[in-house]
């Protein structure tokens, strides 16, 4: 592919802003719009960009009101306002969406933002609140209330096919918790042992409490601009090296349909996106220095490690058991901020935040000499997405 038509390194993340992470419901009386605007203002300040100069918004999955944000923040004019469809799969891809808009000349300073405020409605039970439809009544009437139930079916199949064990899931939870202990933004500060893991209540077999991500309130924003302009701004640019969104038709509605072909059922749906991503990048899996992998469930971290080629199909259990994803000595430190399992769950935006910090060289758990970081969006129905960031030399 000619670089003239690609996105490789032509844009950069130049601003990063976040609210604190609160346990679900604890951000009251702040409003969701307030959280989102707090993150955007902080990201603009970090970049050294005046808030009114923002001229584009790229979202995913949630219901955003660009007009309201413009009025609230005093933004003069917007040339781009778009959202990746689907549910949680688009977080990483929204950065690519922003890059595409900039390279196409539609906007110059694009915000990617997500905010989460869970009050009475817990996101884990959201599918149960959707009105029953001719499609949804199949899974709703079976009592598949939330993604935790649905992904449990994939996890059980993975264990059956490949001998994956709960100890392997536990290693994801425990290694991620270890990273949270030394990351100032992370919520969970108590060490997690294997005994703790096995003593936890079972929610939906084979997933116990510690296989689930946190429920968090908070917001995170990043600002994307052209590489040319990035050189004049305050922060060391973090290049948007490669981006991919979409997926294979056979994955389709995935967890809401459960008719994926047998060879891709126990998977994350990311295999096609991973192929696209590496084809656009200077590196393959062996060139990734740290991976921020969407961890709504431990089992899906394993399946993404396979789909992104860090190990073979069915080999992720042995891969993590070897210590490979540990910050301390692992070949591929994963979710170095404590992830969504132990850090905070902002629908994937925390993974982008941590990858930016790693590429700036300012992360709390800094991977030495890290040059390329992978970020993944949430395994869900199509589209899913992936992102590779590159550090400035």
């Amino acid at each position: 592919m000619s670089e003239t038509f690609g996105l490789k390194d032509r844009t950069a993340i130049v601003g990063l802003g976040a609210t604190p992470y609160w346990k679900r419901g604890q951000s009251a009386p702040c409003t969701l719009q307030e959280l989102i605007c707090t993150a955007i203002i902080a990201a603009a300040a970090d970049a050294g960009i005046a808030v009114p100069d923002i001229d584009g918004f790229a979202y995913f999955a949630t219901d955003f009101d660009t007009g309201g944000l413009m009025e609230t923040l005093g933004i003069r004019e917007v040339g781009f306002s778009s959202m990746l469809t689907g549910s949680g799969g688009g977080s990483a891809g929204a950065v690519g969406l922003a890059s595409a808009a900039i390279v196409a000349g539609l906007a110059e300073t694009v915000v990617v933002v997500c905010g989460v405020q869970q009050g009475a409605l817990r996101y884990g039970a959201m599918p149960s609140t959707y009105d029953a439809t001719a499609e949804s009544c199949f899974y709703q009437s079976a009592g598949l209330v939330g993604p935790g139930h649905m992904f449990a079916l994939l996890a059980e199949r993975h264990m059956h096919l490949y001998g994956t064990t709960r100890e392997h899931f536990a290693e994801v939870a425990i290694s991620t918790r270890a990273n949270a202990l030394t990351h100032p933004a992370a919520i969970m500060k108590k060490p997690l042992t294997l005994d703790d893991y096995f003593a936890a209540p079972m929610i939906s077999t084979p997933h116990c409490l510690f296989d689930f991500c946190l429920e968090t309130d908070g917001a995170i924003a990043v600002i994307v601009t052209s590489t040319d302009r990035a050189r004049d701004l305050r922060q060391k640019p973090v290049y948007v090296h490669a981006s991919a969104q979409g997926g294979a038709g056979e994955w389709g509605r995935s967890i809401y349909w459960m008719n994926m072909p047998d060879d891709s059922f126990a998977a994350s749906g990311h295999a096609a996106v991973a192929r696209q991503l590496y084809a656009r990048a200077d590196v393959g899996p062996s060139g990734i220095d740290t991976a921020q992998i969407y961890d709504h469930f431990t089992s899906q971290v394993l399946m993404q490690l396979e789909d992104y080629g860090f190990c073979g199909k069915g080999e992720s259990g042995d891969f993590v058991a070897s210590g490979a994803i540990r910050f301390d000595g692992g070949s591929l430190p994963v979710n170095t901020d404590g992830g969504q399992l132990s850090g905070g769950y902002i629908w994937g935006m925390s993974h982008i935040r941590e990858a930016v910090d790693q590429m700036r060289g300012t992360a709390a758990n800094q991977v030495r000499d890290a040059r390329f970081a992978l970020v993944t969006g949430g395994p869900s129905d199509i589209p899913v997405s992936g992102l590779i960031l590159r550090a400035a030399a």
Partner: protein
Amino acid sequence: MTRIAKRPPDVLVRIVADRWTEPFWSAACDDRLTCAQCANCGRFRMPPSPFCPYCQSQDLNWPDLPGTGTVYSFTVVERAVLPGSEDSIPYVAAVIALDGAEPARLISNIVDSDADAIRIGAPVRVVFDHLSDGQSLPRFVLSENPA
């Protein structure tokens, strides 16, 4: 002690049909298990959808299936999913590979069976739950470990 697989809370069971799924649900009312089969190329698909993904035909057959299948995957739900629904625990959501309709699978439940005896590959047979609103729902019991 044997743990019997119960049923998900009734409040979750709201059958909504459209012209493409209605034959499945009306068959269930007659205690018949069926599956959408493309009348042009013969391939099965579930849930029923308006076009065959292989040949784009809209013509469907609704053959009677033997009512047996195997557990493709399952989860034992052990935490109440809605406030006040503790009595429904544990229930088992499962993906069932339907005999006579390969490769189509049905999202359903395993009920009235030993919850701890369920394994992937276990044979199951259909039972029909007749709901208070007149609808009917196919569910499955373990063929070899009924409670």
